[in-house]
């Protein structure tokens, strides 16, 4: 693949269709600037600021843009609220739709056949493979990203974090907890 991709890049560069410096910048952006730390800041803000939380659930796209995150593969974002009664989980059975501005590029498992085939039909079984066991009475809502709407799960704030700063809280928010295949870390996890 390395040779095939390099050959095509050479052809496209010689023809003047691409500027390799723009390619470098695209790669650097998604390797270093756009990733799940962005989403963690959104979640932490929603945990400490009730007004922000209300704006986020009313219309997530502008609320997320307040923190500077917007654009490609996040043009229309909907935030999903996890509660003791309802657990949300996001999939794209048809391809790999994922909220890039807040989570970055999706991990391989999210794009893989096992996850895409089973998340809709056996969400509890999939969660168990991620080590997440919910009470049997908890309702699971799976969101299949079939349009340009991108879904961001807002997990519940962990117990024992009263008075924590936004920055400390953001360290508890994992990528998987914003997809719905994980839960946030607990304060004890941070010191382990």
């Amino acid at each position, binding site marked *: *693949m*390395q040779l*095939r*991709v*390099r*050959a*095509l890049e*050479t*052809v*496209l560069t010689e*023809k*003047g*269709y*691409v*500027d390799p410096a*723009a*390619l470098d*910048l*695209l*790669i650097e*952006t*998604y*390797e270093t600037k756009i*990733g799940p730390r962005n989403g963690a800041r959104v979640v932490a803000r929603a945990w400490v600021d009730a007004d922000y939380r209300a704006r986020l659930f009313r219309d997530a796209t502008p609320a997320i843009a307040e923190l500077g995150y*917007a*654009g*490609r*593969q996040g*043009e*229309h974002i909907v935030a999903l609220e996890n509660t003791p009664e309802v657990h949300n989980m996001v*999939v794209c*059975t048809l*391809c*790999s739709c994922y909220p890039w501005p807040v989570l*970055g590029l999706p*991990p391989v*498992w999210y*794009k*893989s*056949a*096992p996850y*895409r*085939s089973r*998340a*809709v*039909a056996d*969400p*509890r079984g999939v969660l168990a*493979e*991620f080590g997440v066991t919910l009470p049997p*009475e908890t309702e*699971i*809502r*799976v*969101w*299949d990203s*079939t*349009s*340009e*709407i991108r879904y961001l799960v807002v997990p519940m704030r962990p117990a024992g974090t009263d008075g924590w700063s936004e920055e400390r809280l953001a360290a508890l928010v994992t990528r998987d907890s914003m997809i719905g295949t994980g839960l946030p870390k607990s304060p004890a996890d941070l010191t382990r």
Partner: protein
Amino acid sequence: MNGAHDLGGMHGFGPVEPEPNEPVFHAEWEKRAFALTLAMAMPGRWNIDMSRFARENRPPAEYLSMSYYQIWFAALEQMLKERGLVGDDEIAAGHSLRPPKPVERILSPADVAKVLYRGGPTEREPRTAPAFKPGDKVRAKVMNPRTHTRLPRYARGHVGVIARVIGFHVFPDSNAIGAGEDPHWLYAVRFEGRELWGPQGDPRSSVSIDAWEPYLEPA
């Protein structure tokens, strides 16, 4: 199309295997294939629905045996060839053998941040009133187009409830075949687990899909 990409509900793929501390890319070529795909959308003038169709429109055995970025790269080569931007002989030679076709614009380094931040919103000014409202019972139509669609097979023929009226959005089924954006009302439709999967379904779970009005009929 009823392709191998439409995976919801299939059996036999085994467990989900997350990779601890996964890197963003797993090889240098993945980075370049990713960036080339993003950058070429501007001079290539294709839309996201055309890209998706180019990726899914391949024999099932081939689709399932390729890695994610192998599929991206194959779709990129195909779209470039279809538009006469690159020839097979040039790919084989690894060099341009002919003058370029004129293109409107290319992605410059100075524009990267701006272009990513702007993205490609798909909401349009409504031209009609929505046919459904939250709480309405709807059936996902039974349909089997050979072209691109975003109505997954597992939902077709099943009854759900309108959870939310999302907005008036570009219709992929039309946009993917170059027939224009043809925007329609888009809804979040919730289907109960037992409705979709019968006795094997989880009675305490539901699946929501985003469905454009032409996918739905009153139930």
